């Protein structure tokens, strides 16, 4: 009896593995067969095994709402999300193209601003973005790379088309869970993984380390690269220490660093040592109190001067926030046409800008059907889910939009695709909604897309919210190997 015998996809939703008639999609017949060969009891056992391993290994994130900085494991579902070789090929090409155009956009905005002069994107929109940093105009990053690591969030609509939902070009997180999830899968489903012909991902840290060294202002072979973390109470601390460990480089906090004569040094037990590349996982407004927040005790005084002098590479580059602003997002296809003279490979989601009169009128009339987002918030905060909202909430958002139209955008609610998910308390497999965040690493030599990425799943029945802070979990993401 197959684990999936009782499985029924939701109506009007794309299911990753099954057709509307509950038959396996042709490209996944083999995968469904090997995955479905275990019993419910075995699946429950494997799920328990995985959770215990994650807990004991301290694969946790900190919860901000709890001021003691307590840790929780990121819920994990033992049933993987699978992507076919053909779909992946399409995504891989589309992501290369998108990240390349976004990088060229940033070079342009902090350079000649050609795209604004030619009026392909409204100048006031770009120059008025909260995360646009005019002080970086004319500053060229060491190695010429700005988006060393990108995380592009994608969803899949009811027709099965992948659509970009948002770009994360500042400090995208989550890759440690991707790598840990794969390790857990190898432990609990070794035979299944082997038979499903899945592309490996464990070279991500090596690729990242190479990319970081490649942008060093000094000889990459003798450069000192560090990971900068806000500290062990940060929600993503596990990931910071994980990546440092996997790359074999040091994890530092801001007080460990200081600037002397435009060069950055780290305090060691053998005295100061020069630092050439900083993979910074701190928010850029906390990078340098001299520049951003004079009141802040965090940060490294003078580090931006050192960066501007080309003496240290900051990864990702400061100032990237202007490109992943949610109000700039509708113009990414235009960037692709402008810089690359080609049509966008990836679709996106129709978006209304509340700063435009015609859009705002439409949004205010259709609040109950739309999803409204603040352009500078993340993690599922600052959002209105129209279809599930109350009249009071809609009223509240109406006031907010009218007060600060530049700050809000709206999108039609997209049916996220579903995939079979193990529901522990019922001991059954049911469809749950998912998204996908692939990671793109860019070195001086070019970009590389890790095959797969973070699949987040809304574990609560009927929910669309996949954020870990709000009842989301994750799955291992399997990209099938191409048939040779």
């Amino acid at each position, binding site marked *: 009896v197959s684990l999936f015998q009782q499985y029924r996809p939701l109506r009007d939703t794309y299911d990753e593995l099954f057709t509307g008639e509950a038959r396996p999609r042709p490209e996944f017949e083999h995968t469904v067969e090997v995955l479905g060969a275990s019993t419910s009891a075995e699946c429950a056992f494997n799920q328990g095994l995985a959770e215990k391993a994650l*807990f*004991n*290994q*301290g694969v946790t994130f900190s919860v901000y709402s709890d001021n003691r900085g307590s840790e929780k494991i990121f819920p994990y579902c033992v049933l993987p999300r699978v992507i076919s070789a053909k779909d992946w090929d399409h995504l891989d090409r589309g992501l290369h193209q998108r990240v390349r155009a976004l990088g060229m956009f940033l070079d342009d905005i902090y350079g000649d601003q050609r795209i604004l002069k030619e009026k392909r994107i409204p100048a006031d929109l770009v120059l008025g973005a909260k995360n646009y940093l005019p002080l970086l105009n004319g500053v060229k990053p060491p190695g010429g790379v700005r988006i060393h690591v990108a995380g592009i969030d994608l969803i899949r609509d009811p027709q099965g088309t992948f659509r970009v939902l948002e770009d994360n070009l500042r400090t995208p997180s989550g890759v440690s869970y991707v790598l840990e999830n794969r390790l857990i899968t190898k432990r609990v489903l070794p035979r299944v993984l082997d038979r499903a012909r899945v592309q490996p991902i464990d070279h991500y840290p090596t690729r990242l380390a190479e990319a970081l060294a490649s942008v060093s202002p000094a000889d990459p072979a003798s450069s000192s690269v560090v990971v900068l973390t806000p500290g*062990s109470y940060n929600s993503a*601390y*596990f990931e910071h*220490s*994980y990546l*440092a*460990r996997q790359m074999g480089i*040091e*994890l*530092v*906090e801001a*007080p*460990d660093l200081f600037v002397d004569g435009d060069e950055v040094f*780290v*305090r*060691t*037990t*053998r*005295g100061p040592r020069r630092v050439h590349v900083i993979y910074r996982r701190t928010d850029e407004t906390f990078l340098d109190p001299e520049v951003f927040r004079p009141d802040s005790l965090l940060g490294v005084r003078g580090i931006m001067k050192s960066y501007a002098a080309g003496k240290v590479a900051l990864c990702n580059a400061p100032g990237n926030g202007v490109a992943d602003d949610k109000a700039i997002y509708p113009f990414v296809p235009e960037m692709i046409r402008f810089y690359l003279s080609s049509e966008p490979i990836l679709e996106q989601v129709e978006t209304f800008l509340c700063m435009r009169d015609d859009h705002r009128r439409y949004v205010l009339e259709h609040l109950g059907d739309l999803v409204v987002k603040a352009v500078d918030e993340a993690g599922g905060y600052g959002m209105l889910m129209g279809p599930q909202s109350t009249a009071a909430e809609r009223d509240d958002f109406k006031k907010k939009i009218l007060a600060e139209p530049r700050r809000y955008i709206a999108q039609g609610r997209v049916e996220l695709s579903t995939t079979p998910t193990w529901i522990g308390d019922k001991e059954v497999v049911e469809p749950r909604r998912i998204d996908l965040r692939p990671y793109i690493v860019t070195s001086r030599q070019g970009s590389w897309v890790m095959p797969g990425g973070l699949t987040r799943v809304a574990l609560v029945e009927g929910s669309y919210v996949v954020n870990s802070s709000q009842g989301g979990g994750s799955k291992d993401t399997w990209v099938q190997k191409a048939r040779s």
Partner: protein
Amino acid sequence: MISRVADYCFWFGRYLERAESTARVLTVTRALALDGNLTPEQCWLPVLITSGNEPVYLEKYGKEAVEDERVQEFSTWEETNLSSIRRSIAGARENARSIRELISLEVWVNINELHNWMRHSGARTEYNHHRYDFYRRVRESIQLILGLLRGTMLHDTPLDFIWFGLLLERSNQTARILDVQHHMTNMLVSTHQVLDTSLWLSLLRACSGFEPFMKRSRGRVSGDAVAAFLILEPHFPRSVTYCVHSALDSLSKIRPPAAHELPGGRALERLHVLDSWLKAQTPQGLAAPGAVHEVLTHVVDETQQICGDVAQELFGYS
């Protein structure tokens, strides 16, 4: 190595050793109490004095309350007792989390498991029903971690700092346990109570030194012989001399004596002097009245100074 990280390594080692030592002292004192002939206070007050908690405890519970269950509860679980087993393990784990990228996965998983076990009902149940097994599990979990540190980590500066912290803590623990017990035992002798060799044996057991001592002394147990063994024996891994000498080895790897341009010279010099001073001590000298207490006090004071020097010179404290 980054100064802040070296500091975490140092304290990771110290907390591990402190938790293990406390578990050992409690196990042994329980066994001693069963042998009878001693009042609860005579048995358990030394435990509090050794950990430096006597004033806090007496203020909280009063002198009448120095009895086995309450002292064990206080030394094992008390949140406000900074050297309780629970706090020491939590401290070790917190430091380990901050140097997660340095220690091996095996070390991390084991300290994490021990910490999780202490926080959940499993440890409490074990403590309530199988006290001996509870303390044994604490000791053995930590010994496993110490073995994993040596067996799975690069033998370079981070491990040197962990070991340096652990050895200073261990020399301090041995010195304090011996000082307190030596004092109590002499008091009992002077009040003409029958002194059982079991007191000396329990002291040896508290330092895991019973069998090694017997191999050296061939069965002759005396207060002087035990004190000389725990202070001077160069081959016993918990003797004061051994710990100080090994700590000097670790620090010399971290900061080579010839590397005058590097920070850490003051701590190294002081530790070097202490090591030489200990080597000059003899069993005959220790047998003089008050000599054991004097030597141990000097060791505890000097290690305190060395920790201060290391914090300033290597960890960047101001």
